[in-house]
């Protein structure tokens, strides 16, 4: 049985609507934020929702968590309608918004957990057991008695996660959980989410703009653009579809002779390197697909144009990959 089912989900926002009286001369505009979205998610899956800003990811998450009502279509989470059964469903899901706190700003972290325990009616035994586990895995001890407003972003995020998991939800929704965190904090967070998914079996739904989040966490990727699903599969399958767009930057000792580039190594036929010379005349920006043309090969071909004194790789960015779909 699927834990989340969405069927022809659609959400239309009406902008420019007037409250009282006659409408303005220009009629209200309907914006279709989500259209005809259908998917099934099985228990225990770790799914990443990807897409550019405004693609409809957040709207979809909001419909799954009972924050918004779909204009049409149907969604169920753990067998419940998030709209009709909002309160009951809230007891079974955990939600973390990366940019907003769900904790009590002025109270010590520990107090937030006490309030949540009462709110979610967590039995004392479960509370103690989960609190122990979360405190250890997330290292909460050091700042348990500090008011939430004094916590660093990384600490707060760990607190948010613990708060969202105290009642042992079956599904965890994370809206850009790693946004603004430093590298170490991100790594710790991913480690935690991985073990939560693997050991406790919690289904995790995540939105992110961070390629590493996707690579390290998501078994399945749903790419959404302009409100509809444009891809559903694993990361490997995603790469198969769109390749792995990469870029490198090389600096030459002398301004390179670009005319000699195409002859290099007799690989005139491979069209998959796009080269632009930057303003200084000596630096070259090369875009290529790492799947069909590995970086050393690109370098070798660039060397035909002159002596390279320095170069740097630029990691493939999620946006670049996703852009292949538009």
């Amino acid at each position, binding site marked *: 049985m699927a834990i989340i089912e969405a069927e022809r989900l659609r959400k239309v926002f*009406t902008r420019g609507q007037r409250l009282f009286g006659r409408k303005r001369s220009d009629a209200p505009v309907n914006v279709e934020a989500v259209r005809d979205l259908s998917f099934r998610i099985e228990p225990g899956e770790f799914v990443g929702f990807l897409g550019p800003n405004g693609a409809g990811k957040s709207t979809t998450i909001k419909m799954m968590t009972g924050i918004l*009502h779909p204009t049409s279509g149907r969604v169920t989470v753990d067998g419940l309608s998030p709209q009709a059964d909002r*309160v009951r469903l809230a007891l079974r*899901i955990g939600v973390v*918004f990366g940019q907003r706190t769900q904790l009590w700003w*002025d109270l*010590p972290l520990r*107090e937030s957990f*006490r309030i949540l325990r009462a709110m979610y009616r967590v039995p004392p035994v479960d509370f103690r057991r989960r609190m122990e586990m979360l405190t250890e895995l997330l290292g909460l001890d050091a700042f348990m008695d500090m*008011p939430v407003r004094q916590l660093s972003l990384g600490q707060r995020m760990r607190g948010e996660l613990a708060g969202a998991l105290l009642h042992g939800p079956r599904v965890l929704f994370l809206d850009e959980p790693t946004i603004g965190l430093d590298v170490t904090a991100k790594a710790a967070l991913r480690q935690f989410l991985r073990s939560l998914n693997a050991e406790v079996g919690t289904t995790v739904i995540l939105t992110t703009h961070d390629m590493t989040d996707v690579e390290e966490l998501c078994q399945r990727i749903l790419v959404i653009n302009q409100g509809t699903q444009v891809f559903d599969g694993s990361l490997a399958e995603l790469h198969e579809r769109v390749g792995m767009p990469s870029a490198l930057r090389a600096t030459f000792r002398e301004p390179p002779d670009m005319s000699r580039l195409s002859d290099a190594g007799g690989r005139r036929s491979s069209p998959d390197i796009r080269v632009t010379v930057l303003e200084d005349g000596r630096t070259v920006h090369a875009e290529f697909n790492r799947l069909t043309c590995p970086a050393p090969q690109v370098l070798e071909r660039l060397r035909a144009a002159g002596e390279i004194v320095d170069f740097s790789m630029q990691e493939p960015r999620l946006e670049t990959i996703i852009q292949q779909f538009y």
Partner: protein
Amino acid sequence: MREALKAAGDGCRTYGIVAASSLRSRAAYTWNFTLSLFFQMLMYSADVAALLLMVRTAGAIGGWGTYDILFLSGLVLASSGVYRVFGSELHNFDKYLVHGEFDGVLIRPAHTLLTVAARSIDVEQGGAFLEGVVLMVLAWRHLAPDLGLGVVDALCAALAVACGAVIWFAVVTATAALGFWTTRIDDLQPVLLYGPETAVSYPLSIYPKAVRWIFQTILPVAFGSYVPAAAILRKGPPLSDLGWCAAVAAASFVAALGLWNLGVRRYTSTGS
């Protein structure tokens, strides 16, 4: 029905824990807390002093003497002080709508109004309530011998504060609920909240008919101020009028709750 009662019970328990936590965390800064209370009371005193000065000069207004008005403004201050403590989140509801924080309210397993109110309890705002009670007691000591006020009247005064508190809380809730349509509520508050608060600190009898009508119908704040005060201070109406006050208080809260629920429905179907 039983489930609803149980949910309400759980909600109140959660609310109690939030209240206790807030109180504890504020108590950690004793000086801050005391000073803040003190300055608030000073501020409210200035308002009341201005009012009394005017009454003194005029002798009496609308048949109400200095101490009558002291009692009335004490009643308004005490009862409206309650929403400043327990409804502080509703009072500042803008932020939930402007920054989309209301999303976080909808994911909680409780009624949205309770969840919002339980976000924080502003103990430091208790100054208005305290000062109101002090003013009422001062007036009482002066008026009691002449009017023959007894225990029953004192209980009625307590009931009047409670009715006022519920009515003001309903007004704050309704004003916040209007925010679901208007997004900002800081333009509405002076009209629906602060203005009426000042207005009903004076006897209602001095106002034109239309104003009296408003405060006794669509914005029924007179039932938490003038109406019970007139009964207690022997201005004519019988003490049994307090029954009406309690009924109006209950009805206005139910109406505010209805408006709130309507607003939430609008939020969930349009979003931010």
